[in-house]
């Protein structure tokens, strides 16, 4: 047991911090904050291509697939650093869908799509959720029906984030309506977002994050758009969700925010000239956040370490998701109290803005990952069953 980074891991962190420090010009940062941390703008695209050219995309993929072959712990350091830098990296494309195409895809996926993903030139949105299929994802209704040697796709997806600037949608569809178990009749397709039968309307959320309702109207695709086995989609979905969790509750951005609030409170004086940070209640809030960040850091690092060792425990992965998502909400509240009224002032206000209005916005976005990415209720079910052997109710 040695709960410290190796010198090589520390060196990687420093290399990345310097790299992203240079990449994130004020103009790019401005664009990303305007795009509500989603990316998609011209400077964002240029930066992504540069990262592709510099070999920073696909770092966890095996080298024979064109990646860097990094261990999960190194990938984790990468994710943490890029998130600290504030660049909205398209993890879903590069770390979730990309490796699956590289591993389970056909010739077209491997020779045409994968190199473009690695070059930062191809983006993919995720089409799982539907109006009637959320947590119970296997209830999805969008269908693909065989017609000659083509597939005809019809249906509606909900919350298809980034779809308005992506090239393809990684679409979960029902291919066997008669399967004895509903998750056994699902397949994965790559559907081009420029197909005439594809359309998209914006869904605007509390946190200004734009997502989409997407519609699939008699879209015809061929077998090469099918990924993996017919009716074998469920496995691809669940393994993709596992990879996604690595970036959901990353500790980096909250650590940066904490440091900035401490700095701000140390420089801010009260009417009597004393520092805000010397108030007992301020120290109490800051200490609470610091204590929570330390645990999140360790929970994340342990998960990355276990992935490197090939011993990732189901319960531990759920611990990270639940703890992280709920701690963020508490942390934003405690830090917001320190910042006071200014924590409600929006970015680009004429006056009164603190830390670029970040806490104002975080209050509005924080709920997404308590129900998204596998709702916390299900994660707690997993913890009590896999971690404590408590019997589950049948569902």
């Amino acid at each position, binding site marked *: *047991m*040695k*709960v*410290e*980074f*190796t010198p090589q*891991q520390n060196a990687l962190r420093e290399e990345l911090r310097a790299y992203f420090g240079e990449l994130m010009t004020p103009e790019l940062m401005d664009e990303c904050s305007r795009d509500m941390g989603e990316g998609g703008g011209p400077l964002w695209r240029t930066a992504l291509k540069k990262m592709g050219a510099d070999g920073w995309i696909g770092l966890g993929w095996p080298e024979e697939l064109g990646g860097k072959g990094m261990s999960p*712990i190194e990938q984790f350091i990468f994710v943490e650093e890029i998130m600290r830098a504030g660049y909205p990296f398209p993890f879903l494309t590069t770390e979730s869908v990309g490796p699956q195409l590289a591993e389970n895809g056909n010739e077209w996926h491997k020779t045409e799509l994968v190199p473009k993903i690695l070059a930062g030139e191809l983006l993919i949105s995720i089409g799982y959720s539907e109006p009637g299929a959320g947590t119970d994802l296997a209830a999805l209704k969008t269908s693909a029906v065989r017609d000659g040697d083509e597939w005809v796709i019809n249906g509606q997806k909900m919350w298809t984030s980034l779809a308005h600037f992506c090239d393809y949608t990684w679409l979960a569809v029902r291919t066997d309506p008669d399967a004895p178990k509903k998750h056994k009749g699902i397949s994965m397709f790559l559907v081009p977002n420029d197909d005439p039968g594809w359309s998209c309307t914006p869904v605007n959320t509390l946190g200004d994050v734009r997502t989409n309702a997407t519609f699939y109207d008699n879209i015809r695709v061929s077998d090469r758009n099918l990924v993996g086995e017919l009716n074998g989609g469920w496995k691809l979905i669940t393994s993709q969700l596992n990879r996604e969790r690595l970036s959901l509750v990353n500790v980096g951005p909250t*650590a*940066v925010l*904490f*440091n900035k609030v*401490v700095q701000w409170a*140390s420089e801010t004086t009260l009417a009597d000239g004393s*520092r805000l*940070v*010397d108030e*007992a209640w*301020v*120290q*109490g809030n*800051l*200490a*609470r956040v*610091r*204590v929570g*960040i*330390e*645990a999140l*850091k*360790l*929970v994340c*690092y*342990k998960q*990355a*370490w*276990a992935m490197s*060792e090939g011993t990732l425990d189901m*319960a*531990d992965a759920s*611990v990270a998701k*639940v*703890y992280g998502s709920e701690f963020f909400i508490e942390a934003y509240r405690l830090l917001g109290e320190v910042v006071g009224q200014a924590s409600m002032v929006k970015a680009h206000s004429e006056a009164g803005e603190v830390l670029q209005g970040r806490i104002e916005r975080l209050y509005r976005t924080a709920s997404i990952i308590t129900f998204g990415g596998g709702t916390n*209720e299900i*994660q*707690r*079910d997993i*913890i*009590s*069953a896999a*971690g*404590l*052997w*408590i*019997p*589950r*109710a049948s569902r």
Partner: protein
Amino acid sequence: MDFGFSEQQGEVQTLARQILSEQVTPERLAAYDEFKAERFDRELWQQLAQAGLLGVALEESHGGMGFGFTELALFIEEVGRSIAPVPVIPHLVSAAAPIQRFGSSELQGRWLPGVASGDVLLTAALMEPGNEEPAAPSLTTATLDGDGYRVSGLKTCVPFARSADRILLSAAVDGGVVVLLVDPKSAGISLEDVRYSTYETQYQLTLQDVQVSAADVLAGPTAGAAVMQWLSLRTTAALCAHQLGVTDHSMRMTASYSAERKQFGVLIGTFQAVGHRAANCYIDVECLRLNTYQAASLLASEADATNEVQIAKVWAGDVGHRVSYASQHLHGGTGIDRDYPLWRYCLWARHNEMMLGGSARQLAALGARIAAGEAYCA
């Protein structure tokens, strides 16, 4: 970054768990309830000594195994898991460890072999009424007296003070703090039994002009505060390790119970509200575990771990509190029935929560470090 156990760490854990789970039964623990006897199982103590565990972190030249603080913490976690009636923390962490680290070779030779063999018993007096800061004694003072010191003052929460051969304590002197090994049988010492809810008596120790010879001085005025700081961090981390064992065991007892107990014709564990409260305990215990292991691992390599130890102790306090009440609640009446083994665990969770300062005090200390720019995130 390595969260796995080395072979020797795994062996220490297995050995300790084997002896303690066999020997510490509810029947044996019941012998100490209501202060019927001093909460010290001497037979078990000898078994632990024979297995080498009392010397786990002592050098081989003193009869130890030659391992470090991480292994010692793993042993203490097992002591917590079984709530064994043995004075492992005061004897090994608060007293023997600083003697090995800072004592003269004469002092080491005099005490450490007996520490490992269980022939001598050491303890420490770390707190004073209203003062939980071991490195800053305010009620206990010493004055030079020949080569040694004369000490007067007051200490509280001293476990095993009556049976110990020496009590390690700090006293304020001109120019700093001294650390002394005081014989509880010396003239001028009086002990009062203070009855704590764990049934482990914590003595109040009054010293009046007690003479301490030069041979019993562990650290002089310039070094004393740092020595106390060193052993206080380790004692705090040890309390966290003990708490980890206590809460992990309470939680697992609760999980087993919810997989056996039926109401409304089904196992209570199948109620989502029950499963989720247990899951919350699991998350809590995992956070305590990782923070404790991090603190132990940093202390083992003599790194500065002040922030990490304070953070771990906040988790020990909070998690102890939450797991204790969740366990009681999820058991219904059974949890507090004294014929069922949970209740004693609840008392130890409380003990570990409060000793050397509860969460609020740790948070205040950490908050001061944050304000001083000493606790930024890396």
